């Protein structure tokens, strides 16, 4: 290859390079309003450059010059992300039901609510359910783990009765390890005798 050909090739690549970079798809990021209003943020990084988005509709976009912040809007988000927003699945929800001391029987109040609350779970298109059994701090770990498991199984049976496929239900027992209301060991606390049902 002659020197002039090589030089020519170099010029060719040098000219092509910006065009190639220009063709690279541009990234655009928008922080959305948080439903609970809690503070939140994302960091958009490109090489050494960083843009932090911390308020609703704060946005970052790429250009040939790098990443820059700008103010987006509900309208722009709807335009750009309408179909993705419409395809968002339902948020995970948690239902808590309470049990009689030392037993796997629901309290009277929870008994009255169980059908309504669990029907809500069963109504989801493909409910994926985690059932977590808990106890208060009376007794040993072994006896409480067993009790928590039995409480979980009671709820599993109810969910299956309401039409949730058994293979979509996972039951775990946390025994007295995760009290809702922290107490000293041996304390009988009704609010800790519960099963949490988390549905996605």
């Amino acid at each position: 290859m002659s020197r002039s050909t090589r030089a020519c090739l170099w010029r060719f690549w040098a000219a092509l390079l910006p065009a190639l970079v220009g063709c690279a798809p541009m990234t655009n990021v928008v922080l959305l309003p948080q439903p609970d209003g809690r503070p939140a943020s994302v960091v958009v990084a490109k090489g050494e450059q960083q843009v932090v988005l911390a308020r609703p509709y704060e946005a970052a976009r790429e250009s040939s010059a790098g990443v820059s912040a700008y103010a987006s809007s509900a309208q722009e988000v709807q335009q750009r992300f309408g179909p993705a927003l419409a395809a968002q699945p339902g948020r995970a929800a948690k239902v808590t039901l309470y049990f009689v001391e030392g037993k796997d029987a629901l309290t009277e109040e929870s008994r009255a609510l169980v059908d309504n609350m669990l029907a809500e779970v069963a109504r989801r298109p493909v409910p994926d359910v985690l059932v977590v059994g808990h106890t208060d701090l009376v007794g040993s770990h072994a006896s409480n783990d067993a009790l928590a498991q039995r409480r979980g199984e009671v709820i599993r049976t109810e969910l299956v009765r309401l039409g949730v496929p058994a293979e979509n239900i996972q039951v775990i027992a946390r025994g007295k390890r995760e009290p809702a209301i922290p107490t000293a060991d041996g304390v009988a606390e009704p609010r800790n005798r519960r099963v949490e049902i988390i549905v996605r």
Partner: protein
Amino acid sequence: MAPYGKQSRKAVALAVAAGLAGAACAEDIGQIKVSRGQVAVERMGAALPATVGMRLQASDTIRTGSDGSAGITMNDDSLLSTGPNSVLVLQRFALDPATSQGRFDAALDKGSLVVVSGRIAKQSPEAMTVRTPSAIIGVRGTEFAVSVGE
């Protein structure tokens, strides 16, 4: 007794093989909850139709056509939804259900994506990222939207 013994050894060998295959199989990390229009899940070179209820695995790619959109839930309660003409790769997902500690890396190669981060990002703010071909988004527990292209 001899043939029975032989058979039961065979059964044990089969069970072990099945167990190993199960272990080699990627774990379930999420689920397709919404699938509209043309949506496919690409797994180990094969394109599977994305049906509602389908379980997802690490390294799965979700690809939507010009009329497609998809919504998925991850095991840490993250929600990801993509619009048309999108390619979303679930690169890495690991979660300790007891502590909510883990790692979640996804990539949007093109198209649009809306994210509601879940327990992994809530537990450790550095543990979730979304990559695009030209940028990395670090998620500190939040809802946001990303697009690539246009």
